């Protein structure tokens, strides 16, 4: 009987921790800040996990208050062993994310993370090899890019929608010669490499997220400012409108924007970019309808 209170205090701690996680996830989900941490595919999983968390918590709490030491006649539990200090450390470990999550304001990844992860110029859905020789291969994604390029070409200015950001950038990059001189409008955060970027240039970046922040992947388009333009602040969110050009960066030709209009915008509700083939299809559908089904043949004859 002596051990009973110890065991129960463990159950109480665990119950509170589980409840803490449940409340934290529910609150993140309700406020919409969940998108700073995981991709939309994960939302249902996380929302669902609140239910077992609460059930476990309630069950533990119930047993703390009313149950006997073993509410079930079961000898298979891992005995709660170890020193007080060890337990304190373990519970601290569990409490840390809850405290960290609820006390500090939610922030999306920004320039610091981009610098560590390595900013990639151009769209991450294309790589150099693919551009150099292989893109003429009969591949359904290249067909999709060509399709996208055709529909983009008739727009003025080309609007880079966040839903299919990486695909549009990839498509323009693939056919960059054709797109030279076209007007484009896109938004992102300012990424300036302290030592490398000249004063009149920065990268307009975004994070592409597949699952969670662990695989968040920074990519962006170089923006060339006009000579007399005031310097831009790192991490600021901007909307840039200008003409497409190509520049040589990191030993390869990439698309860039000669900025004419630079406006500071609030951080968008959805700061990250996700890969979404449905959105691409939908966009193509809408663009076709709005252009009256006419297929301009300019984009793909490279």
């Amino acid at each position, binding site marked *: 009987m*002596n051990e009973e*209170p110890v065991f129960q*205090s463990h159950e109480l701690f665990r119950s509170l921790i*589980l409840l803490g996680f449940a409340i934290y*996830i529910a609150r993140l989900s309700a406020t919409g800040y*969940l998108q*700073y*941490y*995981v991709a939309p595919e994960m939302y249902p999983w996380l929302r*669902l*996990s609140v239910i*077992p968390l609460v*059930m*476990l918590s309630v*069950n*533990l709490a119930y047993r703390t208050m009313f149950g006997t030491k073993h*509410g*079930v*006649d079961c*000898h*298979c*539990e*891992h005995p709660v062993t170890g020193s*007080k200090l060890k337990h304190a450390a373990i519970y601290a*470990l*569990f409490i*840390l*994310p809850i405290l*960290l*999550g609820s006390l*500090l304001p939610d*922030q*999306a*990844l*920004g320039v*610091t*993370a981009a*610098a*560590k*992860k*390595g900013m*990639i110029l151009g769209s*991450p859905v294309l790589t*150099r*090899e*693919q551009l150099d020789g*292989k*893109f003429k*291969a009969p*591949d359904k*994604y290249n067909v999709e890019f060509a399709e996208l390029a055709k529909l983009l070409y008739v727009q003025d200015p080309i609007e880079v929608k966040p839903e299919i950001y990486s695909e549009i950038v990839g498509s323009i990059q693939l056919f960059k010669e054709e797109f030279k001189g076209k007007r484009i409008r896109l938004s992102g955060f300012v990424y300036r490499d302290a030592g490398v970027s000249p004063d009149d240039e920065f990268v307009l970046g975004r994070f592409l997220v*597949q*699952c*969670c*922040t*662990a*695989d*968040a*992947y920074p990519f962006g388009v170089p923006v060339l400012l006009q000579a007399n333009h005031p310097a831009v602040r790192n991490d600021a969110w901007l909307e840039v409108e200008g003409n497409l050009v190509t520049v040589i960066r990191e030993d390869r030709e990439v698309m860039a924007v000669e900025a004419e209009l630079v406006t500071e915008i609030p951080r968008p509700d959805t700061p990250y970019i996700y*890969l979404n083939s449905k959105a691409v299809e939908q966009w193509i559908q809408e663009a076709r309808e709005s252009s009256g089904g006419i297929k301009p043949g300019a984009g793909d004859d490279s």
Partner: protein
Amino acid sequence: MNKLFPLRILPILAPAAFILACMTVLLPLAAGSVDLTYLYTFRTSFLGILLEALPFVLLGSLLSSLVHLYVSEQLLKKWIPKNPAAGILTACILGLLFPVCECGMIPLIRRLIQKGMPVYIATVFILSGPIINPVVFGATYMAFRLYPEMVYARMGLAFFVAASIGVMIYVTWKTDPLKMASASGATAQDHPAHHSHSNQGKKKWTSIFVHTADEFFDMGKYLLLGCMLTAGIQSFVAKESLESIGSGPVSAYVFMMGFAFLLSLCSTSDAFVAQTFLHSFSSGSLLAFLVFGPMLDFKNTLMLLSVFKTKFVIYLAFLICTVVFTGAVAVDAFFLSQ
């Protein structure tokens, strides 16, 4: 005991209060000079990785407790093929049925071993499950859409590595690899009978809760440590400084495998990260990254250590390193660079 509790922590409370006081005085001063963005980057990465893994660990704990209560040893024996070769092959494709990532798999595997699943079959399942499953196939195909051979190379090599390690474990490892082997062995013996004969539904429900919570806290602490270390590496160590290590032909393999270990990405999203290295690394080393990462990384090593004896984990890690390395080099030479 409860009354004594505050008295006992008094000696710790004094220095803690001192540190707290120091910090309240110093923090505003330090905040000006120290870049807080690093803290925020760490926080976002840490919580992101944790939130992504949490539902799966919960699911794994739940599955594990269900197996514990509803699958008897006899039943499991019937399911597992007697022939080791057939057993290994079945375990290789078991991932097709359970598309769970490794976070969810480890608690389940522990329970299955306790129930009498042979170690080599369990090992094969741990290794192949996170790679040979439809979700990962789809994700890899998306990332390497212009290199479909990479997708098949990944699946094939994972199959080969898992099967051959399974054979090696079958031949060389005869003892119980689980921690607290004697205790778990004993409970596994007398337990299923007890549960399968008790018809009290309410008790069974409660016991599902008890086991799930136990499992969750057991795994959770290792998961949390793994998330913290991974997030730390991701937010404080620059990719370039890591990249400079792996420039030679052999060091590229070593680097990509080490990188996979440190990043601890989920197998459903690592292909995308690997794809970004296409222009700077050989396809063989990328293949090593894709096969090695899901089998062995920071997060799952800590979780493995919570279940298996250290000696077994080291042995397994050694096998994975050597077989993946050899396999990736061979596939690169005979399949990818033609």
